[in-house]
């Protein structure tokens, strides 16, 4: 089966820092794939390289068989590969509804945009209640829902989620994970970056473990869950955190 997303020997630098050292993996249509690893292992950098926010120095990123390595980030987003970044990055100071409209920026037809907005409100009723509120006044969980709902406005084929559970109470983590499962069952392919490996593996079909910019372990989620070296892998080998330092 043709992979929806495929990375081949991708190397990425932040200035002098060699953040990704030859990453290669694939995400198949309909799957939830998770990238695990410690702080600074290169998980976020991998997502940022795929979505075009940071350029790969070498290697290739293929989406639906087409080379997107050198495309601008906004062009990649318009192909249906949408990245929900770490820290949610909602547009603070703008209302919930405006945030959703911006998610649907590439949808020119106002009617289509309105239908998708209504679908987002149906999926996240709390956002409908808060639609005219300044998004920075939402709680952490609500902001994460808004970030996901905003990404769904363009009906992505592949959703990159960077630590959606970060900073959330356990009950909310469960809710977000249920949401991701629902999205996947509805046909969206998901590449999920998580520090919370146990939660991620329960959801994922397949997983990769990163350590200092390399993939050190790969396998079916069930197998990874039982793997003894996994605990060691995501506690992290080195002490440096190049990714966090550079990404700020």
């Amino acid at each position: 089966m043709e992979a929806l997303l495929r990375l081949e020997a991708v190397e990425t630098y932040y200035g002098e820092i060699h953040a990704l050292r030859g990453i290669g993996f694939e995400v198949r249509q309909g799957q939830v794939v998770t990238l695990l690893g410690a702080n600074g292992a290169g998980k976020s950098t991998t997502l940022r390289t795929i979505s075009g926010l940071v350029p790969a120095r070498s290697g290739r990123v293929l989406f639906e068989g087409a080379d997107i390595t050198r495309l601008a980030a906004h062009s990649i987003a318009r192909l249906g590969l949408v990245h929900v970044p770490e820290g949610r990055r909602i547009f603070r100071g703008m209302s919930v509804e405006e945030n959703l409209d911006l998610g649907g920026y590439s949808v020119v037809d106002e009617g289509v945009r309105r239908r998708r907005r209504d679908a987002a409100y149906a999926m996240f009723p709390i956002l409908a209640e808060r639609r005219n509120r300044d998004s920075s006044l939402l709680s952490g969980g609500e902001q994460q829902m808004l970030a996901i709902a905003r990404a769904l406005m363009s009906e992505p084929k592949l959703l990159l989620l960077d630590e959606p559970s970060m900073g959330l109470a356990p009950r909310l983590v469960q809710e977000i994970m249920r949401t991701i499962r629902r999205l996947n069952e509805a046909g969206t392919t998901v590449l999920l970056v998580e520090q919370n490996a146990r939660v991620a593996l329960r959801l994922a079909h397949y997983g990769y473990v990163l350590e200092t910019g390399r993939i050190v372990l790969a396998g079916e989620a069930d197998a990874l869950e039982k793997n003894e070296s996994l605990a060691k892998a995501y506690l992290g080998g080195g002490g440096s955190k190049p990714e966090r330092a550079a990404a700020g």
Partner: protein
Amino acid sequence: MPLYEVLLQQLANGLILGSFYALVALGYSMVYGVIKLLNFAHGDLYMVGAFAGFGALSLISGWAGGGWGGIVPAILFSMLAVGVLGVIIDRVAYRPLREAPKLSVLITALAVSMLLENVALAFTGGQYTAFTTSLGFAGINLGMVHVTWTQMVLVGTSVVLMVVLELFVSGTRHGKAMRAIAIDQDACRLMGIDVDRTIALTFLIGSALAAAAGVLAGVYYGSINFFMGFLIGLKAFTAAVIGGIGSIPGAMLGGILLGLLEAFGTQIPGVGSEWKDVFVFAFLILFLVFRPTGLLGQPEVERM
């Protein structure tokens, strides 16, 4: 004249002056909002706009007349030409420096300002150019205060432009994208927003508004020169700071307030009209010291 008529006269003067300031301040503030650049060349676009409008009016006044029939197309031409010039300046001078330290871009903006002024100086020989129109002094009398139709149309045109801008920025997807870019450029890219094109759009609109103000000022004052953009650039900056730089309603409010301050300030005993610039910039300093976020601005950590 009785006092209330003096005040009424100054109110009219202040509103006209203020609407020019507001139009120029809008571009200043919009550009600052999206790329955090104090575009010191912005005032000079007002000057170029005045000349572009003058040139267009000279060409067409033969058959369109020197009244509004000629002035309106001249304004539209000037807005388009200077809007495009603004986009070119961004593309050539500022975009290559998007990742550079802000000071480098700031110095580049000063260089662009000097370039525009000196090109205009070379073309005009430093002379004042008479901006002649066939608009008369007809109008309405309020007591001893005479307000011409021209003055009312000037203020009206400014208000219309500002309302259109506000509707565009708050209501359309491109307008929302402009505001979003001011908040988080990377997040915008992830939404499929072409950040460079949206910044270019900001320059287009901001420059066009400055050009409109330039032509309107030419019509109002009756003469233009290569240096006319310098002082209004500083005043528009002041207006943008008073309103809260980066805020569109703030720029409008700041511009009008500054115009009124200047008009009424000259009426304070002991403060003659030769002190009006001192008066204005004293306010700038007061705001920078005591309320750097302005009247409507958002608090922000990083400032130039």
